[in-house]
């Protein structure tokens, strides 16, 4: 089946202080769909004035929102989850139009995961508590959590609604008000989400300001009344966000991507069973979301003893990846999110060819007959070595770089020979080998005999240049609040010093 295009409004506004507000200077930009290159809607091109208005509106709400009991914040997050669930199809199809990804994914992953994420943070905020310690017979120490106040969040374009949720749910659960800037490629689905949930939150708790990085993102990241910035993106902007945060001495959390190894040991082929089938699918997951995933398993490390046979079976599975209309449930891969992203991927395919890597499949753009003006790339596999740029730089496209290893020592060396450390996959039937690699790989998430699962409650974040902080887990609450220590003396006697 195919889904109808949602009724996008011709023009959206910023959401500030509980109202839909036109940008101060009256400027808008066109939001295009990567599916067919068409204009979806006009979106505010905001600047420092709009950010300032949003920060003020957020502070106006901050005191009251910070005092709402955890039980009520929990209820509100549950209501948000239920509202998203009721509107799953609308949001999934809108996400597909905005981002280009196949509706098969938005229906099965993006939106259901967002629903569960709000429920998770609703649950943990209700269940957790501060700490109390008896320091001595007359002294009690209490660790009390208090919200930061107003936080800034800059959202990436690869999973717009889900990544906004990863940042919003812990911030709201912890009692903060938020000024959120969606990515300029994909603002509309988040604005539709806001329309759907707006009445569930007090005015000013959630504020959304649209616009370009240098014009709206920078004023948000440098604003003196923002108490924390959360950002997902790339390393240069990550450095800039830290630099801006240093002006105000505020904390940041950053998720900056990776070049995740996916390691296949010879035991996966010991039997021709469901597990082997799962491992083959595990390699092919590089094509999930057209490769536009920070943890894309973009380096496959295969033990040489099984390489030929294992790779032959993987290539057969890659050949079977269905491309076509992203709005059909049978389509497995959609469009890359923007023209420049599409061009960058093709440039990297060219770099791989220049470096002497062998193209095993794909290696070119895909001509989509339904949407000739969209941005489609064939799933591509290179064979090469780990020193090549296609093994070291994040392409953020459906491009897999494959190499082989002799033994465990070589596998570990290649796996950790990267500037990044976000994710890794290990596939083996040997539990001891698994243990060696789960602890030996320098990355924040090790998938063992699985890949690309993102359940709420499993922490997610980077080692090395992949970032700072752990999302997707209740420990993220700690990044969204102060700890206040209350030191209580029950002793009536003076110290005797003075």
């Amino acid at each position, binding site marked *: 089946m195919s889904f109808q295009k949602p009724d996008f409004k011709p023009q959206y506004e910023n959401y500030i202080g509980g109202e839909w507000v036109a940008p101060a200077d009256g400027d808008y*930009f066109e939001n295009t769909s990567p599916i067919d290159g068409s204009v979806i809607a006009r979106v505010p091109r905001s600047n420092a004035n709009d950010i300032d208005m949003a920060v003020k509106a957020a502070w106006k709400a901050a005191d009251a929102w910070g005092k709402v009991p955890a039980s009520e914040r929990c209820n509100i997050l549950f209501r948000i989850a239920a509202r998203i669930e009721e509107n799953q199809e609308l949001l999934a199809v809108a996400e597909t139009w905005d981002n280009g990804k196949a509706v098969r994914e938005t229906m099965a992953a993006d939106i259901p995961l967002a629903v569960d994420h709000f429920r998770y943070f609703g649950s943990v905020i209700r269940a957790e508590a501060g700490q109390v310690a008896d320091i001595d017979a007359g002294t009690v120490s209490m660790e009390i959590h208090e919200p930061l106040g107003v936080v800034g969040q800059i959202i990436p374009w*690869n999973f717009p609604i889900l990544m906004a949720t990863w940042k919003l749910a812990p911030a709201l659960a912890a009692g903060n008000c938020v000024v959120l800037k969606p990515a300029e490629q994909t603002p509309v689905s988040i604005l539709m989400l806001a329309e759907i949930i707006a009445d569930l939150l007090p005015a000013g708790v959630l504020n959304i300001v649209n616009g370009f990085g240098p014009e709206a993102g920078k004023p948000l990241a440098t604003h003196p009344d923002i108490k924390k910035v959360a950002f997902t993106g790339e390393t240069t902007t990550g450095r800039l966000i830290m*630099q801006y945060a240093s002006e105000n001495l505020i904390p940041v959390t950053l998720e900056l991507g990776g070049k995740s190894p996916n390691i296949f040991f010879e035991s996966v082929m010991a039997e021709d069973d469901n597990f082997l089938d799962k491992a083959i699918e595990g390699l092919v997951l590089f094509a999930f979301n057209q490769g536009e995933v*920070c943890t894309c398993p973009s380096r496959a490390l295969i033990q040489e003893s099984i390489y030929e046979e294992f790779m032959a079976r993987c290539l057969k599975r890659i050949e079977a990846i269905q491309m076509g209309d992203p709005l059909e449930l049978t389509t497995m891969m959609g469009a890359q999110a923007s*023209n420049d992203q599409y061009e960058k991927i093709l440039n990297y395919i060219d770099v791989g060819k220049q470096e002497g890597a062998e193209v095993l499949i794909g290696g070119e753009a895909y001509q989509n007959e339904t949407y000739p003006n969209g941005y489609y790339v064939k799933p591509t596999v290179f064979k090469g070595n780990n020193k090549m740029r296609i093994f070291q730089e*994040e392409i953020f496209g459906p491009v897999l770089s494959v190499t082989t290893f002799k033994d465990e020592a070589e596998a570990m060396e290649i796996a950790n020979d990267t*500037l990044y450390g976000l994710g890794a996959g290990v596939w083996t039937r040997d539990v001891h080998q698994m243990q060696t690699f789960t602890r030996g790989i320098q990355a924040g998430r090790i998938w063992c005999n699985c890949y690309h699962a993102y359940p709420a409650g499993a922490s997610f974040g980077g080692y090395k240049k992949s970032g700072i902080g752990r999302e997707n887990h209740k420990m993220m609450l700690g990044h969204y609040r102060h700890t206040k220590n209350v030191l209580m003396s029950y002793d009536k006697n003076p110290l005797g010093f003075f």
Partner: protein
Amino acid sequence: MYVERVSVTEKAAAVIDQLRQQHGDLMFHQSGGCCDGSSPMCFAKDDFLVGSRDLLLGEVHGCSFYMASDQFEYYKNMHVMIDVTQGRGSSFSLEIPLGLRFMSISRIFTDDELANLRPLEVC
């Protein structure tokens, strides 16, 4: 005459001129990582704090072009040409509001070129 590590297309140079009128002196820093990473970012000269381990690869149309030294390990044998394309990257790079995106086009140096490259400057 040294062989340069970085160059710029006429089209990209015209965009640099346009941005310079608005923002003054400019610089580039090659990004890594996800989303809009692995692309050159263009900033006002003093907006981005160049790090003590960033490398100056050369000048493009009056702009210094920097890269983190660990990332440069993989660019040692590559020429980088800054080009520009239609598109909407999201980052703090200054050309984004124009509906344009700078991009790096790479080419492997020949052996003759490698023997005569401009020396790198540590910042």
